[in-house]
């Protein structure tokens, strides 16, 4: 009985039951009724994910410690980091907006990446389940990719007003968007299904 149930998977979007079948690397299984993704076998193994996560953390640091763009207007110069922008918002009585931007572009992505790092490092020894659940709850609220588009819109808007020089952090955010897209496509559930990262 236990064996049979352990081999079942329920569609997260319509609850239809399916029998789990082994997948080739990079494949995903879809629900026959509603087409939602049931489970996937990630293209990258956990030990291949690890360098990506470390790289993303380094890029994250660069993106936050360097100015995003430099503005030049009639001899005047202005530049700001992401954190500087958030402090600016906080300073002018827009604490709610500041907190929202801080959480979605800085805090949540950082916590997500650090937790991923910890989980991948620990995946050989065990699975700290509460941390996994925390990451999964947090994930939809990290919005680096939306912020990247926001940078581009702001740059276009400012280019009417001033001479705009892209800063180091602009490129770092672009790289981070790509890295995060790869990292977030790694479904944490697959670690439960294939603890060693091997094909079942």
């Amino acid at each position: 009985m236990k064996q049979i149930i352990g081999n079942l998977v329920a569609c997260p979007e319509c609850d239809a039951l399916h029998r789990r079948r082994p997948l080739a690397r990079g494949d995903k299984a879809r629900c026959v009724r509603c087409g939602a993704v049931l489970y996937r076998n990630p293209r990258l193994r956990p030990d291949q994910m690890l360098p990506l996560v470390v790289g993303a953390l380094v890029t994250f640091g660069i993106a936050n410690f360097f100015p995003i763009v430099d503005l030049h207007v009639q001899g005047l110069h202005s530049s700001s980091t992401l954190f500087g922008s958030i402090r600016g918002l906080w300073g002018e009585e827009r604490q709610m907006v500041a907190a929202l931007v801080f959480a979605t572009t800085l805090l949540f992505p950082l916590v997500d990446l650090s937790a991923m790092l910890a989980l991948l490092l620990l995946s050989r020894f065990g699975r700290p389940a509460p941390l996994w659940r925390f990451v999964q709850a947090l994930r939809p609220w990290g919005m680096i990719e939306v912020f990247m588009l926001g940078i581009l819109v702001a740059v276009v808007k400012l280019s009417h007003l001033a001479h705009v020089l892209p800063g180091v952090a602009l490129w770092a955010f672009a790289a981070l968007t790509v890295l995060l897209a790869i990292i977030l496509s790694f479904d944490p559930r697959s670690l439960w299904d294939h603890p060693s990262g091997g094909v079942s």
Partner: protein
Amino acid sequence: MTTAAVTAWEAGLVSCPYCGLVCPCLDAVAPPRCPRCGGRLLRRKAESLSRSCAFLVAAAILYIPANLLPVMNSASMFGAEKDTILSGIVYFWTSGSQGLAALIFFVSILVPMLKMAALGSLVWSVHRRSPRHQHQRAFLFRIVEFVGRWSMLDVFVVALMVGLVRFRGLAEIEAGPGAAAFGAVVVLTMLASRSFDPRLIWDRAEDDHD
């Protein structure tokens, strides 16, 4: 259209929302926890319809100040200006960036509006236990989930402008009250779609839940 699928609910099973393990539903143990990862097991999201409805109403109310109040106050040598979301779009359109104007119109005006309408109709149809158009409704929900976060774009643009444009005396930009309202609309609609359980779309009319 498709063969009648057996659901976990009908088989007396429940699947863990965190690790995906399917386990038998033991109502005796309260609150039930996943034996593998310890996550809380619920057959359907708790109070799905009332929660998403509440978030939707709150979002709809805030949608009005979000569009009427200025999101950005800019002051320069040429005078002060208050920009709402719509006037920002008009500015992009008239200054030659029609593509960007269309993009911002799509993510900040159309998406929040359509998202609220779509979620509202989903909640209503599930409440009526309508068995029709299940595939279309499931697809609609997937779009809503995917596209919702992109509405944050305008909030981020305002935040960046505030941080960047600080030339004392020459030009300064401040965030207006509309930005806070708009951010709240995006968060509330995201909460509304997260509390909605898409499995309710497929549940048979005779099942009793919620």
